[in-house]
């Protein structure tokens, strides 16, 4: 972190997720390219300078209900600034919303403010999660879970009505036993 550490934690920092995935990706790239490139072997001290989130204007938004619409996202997220682009996360197979989206603002400051003021508050009566993101790329709008949605919805053990009930893998496994009753778990 640059500068003096604040006496109170900041809410506009990227989560550990991105930092971790950065390392993973680096390793992944290295494997793929068989070590013949130099980006993979980048020195750790260079990382700060080309931090891809330094000027990030995009946010990943998670824990949405499958039923939350673009319009609702617009309504809430516009409170932090004009939205440049909104990409809803879709089930890879059904092409229906699967509970996440990318919100892109015009400025980095708006994205940071969104982290501070909207992340962790409710949209459609669910606490949503925001994370700074280096930017949307084609393909990322699709869930990467086995059955098309997000991976977290495969093995979820709790019943979440807004996100298709029980985790799909678990639901499948339990199907046939007498857990299911008029489509709802008790």
């Amino acid at each position: 972190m640059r500068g003096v550490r604040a006496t109170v934690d900041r809410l506009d920092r990227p989560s550990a997720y991105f930092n971790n995935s950065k390392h993973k990706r680096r390793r992944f790239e290295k494997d793929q390219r068989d070590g013949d490139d130099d980006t993979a072997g980048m020195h750790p001290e260079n990382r700060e300078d080309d931090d891809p989130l330094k000027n990030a204007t995009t946010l990943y938004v998670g824990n949405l209900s499958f039923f939350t619409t673009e319009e609702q996202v617009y309504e809430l997220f516009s409170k932090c600034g004009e939205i440049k682009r909104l990409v809803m996360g879709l089930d890879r197979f059904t092409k229906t919303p699967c509970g996440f989206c990318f919100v892109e603002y015009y400025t980095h400051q708006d994205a940071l403010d969104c982290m501070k003021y909207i992340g962790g508050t409710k949209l459609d009566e669910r606490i949503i999660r925001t994370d700074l993101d280096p930017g949307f790329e084609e393909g990322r709008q699709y869930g990467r879970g086995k059955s098309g949605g997000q991976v977290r919805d495969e093995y979820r053990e709790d019943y979440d009505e807004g996100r298709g009930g029980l985790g799909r893998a678990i639901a499948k496994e339990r199907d046939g036993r007498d857990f299911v009753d008029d489509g709802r778990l008790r």
Partner: protein
Amino acid sequence: MADYDRRGGGGRGGGGGGYNRKRRYRDDNDDDHHYRGNNSRRRYDAPPHVRIRKQLIAIAENPMIERHDEISQIANLFTDNWEDDVLLRGNFVDLVLQLCVEQPLKTPFLAGVLMVANTNKPEVVDMLLEKAARLIEDKLREGEWRDVKLYLKLVGCLQGVMEGDGIFGVLTELFERAVGLQTASSEDTIGTEIVKIILLTLPYVMAAGSPEQQQQWQQKAADLLENTAIIASEPHPLQAVIEPYHPEPSEENPTQSQSLISLLQAQLQIEATQGWALSCLPRPWQFPVSEVEVASKLASAPKHTLPTIIIPKTVVTGPRPLFPEVYISVYGQQEVESVPPPTSLASSLIRDALLDTINVLHFNRNATARQLIEVDCYFAPRTFALRGTPFDRLRDIEKPKSTWKPEDVAVDAVFTQLFLLPNPEHKLVYYHSVLTEACKLAPAAIAPSLGRAIRYLYRNAPRMDLELAYRFMDWFSHHLSNFGFTWKWTEWVDDVELSGLHPRKAFIVGSIDKEIRLSFAQRIKNTLPEPYQQLIGPEKEKDVPDFKFANDDTPFAAEGREIAALLKRKAPDEEIDAVIQRIQSQAIDRDLDALVASTDVFVTCVLYVGSKSLSHVLAAIERTKDRLADAGAASDASRTQIIEAVMAYWSVHPGVALSIVEKLLNYSILTPLTVINWALNVQAGKTHGEALAFAHIYELVFNTVIKVTGRVRQLVIKASQPDEMVDDETKDAEIKNMRELFRAIEDSLGAWAQGTKDEMLEREDGSEGLVKRWGTRWLRVFKRRQAIEEAFLVEAVRERERKEEVRKEWEVVEQQRAAEKAAKEEEAKKNAPAAENGASGEGEKEKENGAEVDIVE
């Protein structure tokens, strides 16, 4: 690329590392255990600087510890390790200075630690004063007035351990600057800000010393107060513009709000006559009789000289524009006083500290909310009633005891920001989020306070400045969306029958629409009592509005359907051209405006094709943007028809319409002037003025104005930076456009306000008065916006000049200081071997690394 869902499995760093990693997943439990075990063991061994950091940051938070115990404990831990831990000294001083600007409620307690430490290691106070003096100088030059105030507050709290005049010298010189500024211009706001800082520092100074010391300072304080009176009592010309309430002419007592600074002046004068009791301020440096030893040490502790603080001859406004401020409270006019009355200095002191806290801690709303809820920890004991005392119980409290409800005081402070004109420091949604968190942290205590605030605001909505009434609605609906949309709607049931022109009915209708926008119609309908249900028609529950050309009775129905079909299969332009030609020639036959007719059909079709979601309509607009742009450029009437079609198609869901208009403005398919003309003349005319009561029409106009003024501001700021290339022509053209826009707004609204609009005469229900009043309220909002933008343009130039002056002045100071320092070093070399110098320099460098070493490495 990045893999959002792979988080659960693999790829984890080593267990226990990375202390800021979020731990939410079950598979982290093992790590967690490990981590906690380590942590608690390590706390024992944690080096003193780590322990001190932790304790200092948390100072005064725990109500179960005696304040003076806590203070001596930290001070002793610090001074005991003075020799062994070199990192500690610099770190400690830096941390104190950081805390007093980041968590300003804690300043008096930090001062307490310093005063106790002073009895053992007086050097620490010298170190701190030196650094504080330099910081104050920096902040003065930058115009960071809040930081200036917060550092002065700390230094003021240390007045008791200072030689001679101490801080009074600085305050006096600051006052001279203010006088200079005020004499130069009656519109000056910097001078007023400086006086405010002086007046807010003074109480902390007066509370800092022993009774004997206070006796000595009383004359100085009296002199200062006598001087500030003229500036503080002079009403600022801009005050009328930022007035939050506008009583209706019929109302009995059209009292104007009082300016914050004149109140403050009056409160201090009262306090002076009462011998500066300052009963709300904490004095953690006063030890009980049982601790004679510390008390006597404190009394005989060494005194220090405040280093020179150079106050620049020219001062700048700084990064935030300065405006006069007025006192508001949502808890006025109650049978029992639940917040300090405006006559009491406590009202200013507590609110000032809370507002600083709120605005400084914007980066962690949870911390803000917590400090607000714990406000009673940071003031003198018994300043407040017990936390969570219900309002109804306040009247049972016997007289000398306080009836001030900490929750009310905290909530009131947030509302002053939410309702600050022209703008609060941060985005409005920040203040929403603080109230949400406070409500989550202590629902039983905060929710009833909010409820009373809402009722007060609702009652007063008709008198409120329209911009504030809109903010209230926006907050209210957003807040409810975080708490299951529950509100006691039954108590307003009688107002449902009011005319749409009544401000309270407008509030109800607007709030419900905003709730639906954040949720969906059926859900909101379920939260409302029966009488409100009629406000949500069945058309609200449809996902997609009806396509008017599906009905054969609509003119051009066949053509409409044809174009929609062509758009759907992305047919080539020529095919669409042919249909449009047909519409136009038919329109001419029917004696209609051909362009308007074809534009209406085409735009409605684009909307229909894109009706599934915003991205659908945006894609549809993107594909047809050339044709839309041509339609917009063809004639004023045709351009107006574009927005007319959008607003008509989405009339049931205005939120969607507004998003589309925003994008059409970005594409320059619509111009701001078209939007304003449509709203204030076309639509307001069609409804005989009733549209002025619709929240979404206000939102549309306001957003458009903000877009235009925002662009002008951006260009002006860019143009003032040397390395940015902005040609003056673009900038001047934008400014000209902005002024034209304001003129158009003023013309339309002026006519509504005066009742000279033609459509007004057609009102037969005797409601012209209400329409006129809406016109007046609108007009005030946009005249203020205009005044602010014009002031910004003037100030931008002046501020640049002032900054240049300050820079030049400071160069001279720096040269002088460098010369003095060199001379001193020369002297030192001659007199003694240079041993001391190196050590402190190294300490500074090492500190950088030390600061990062924390409880977990």
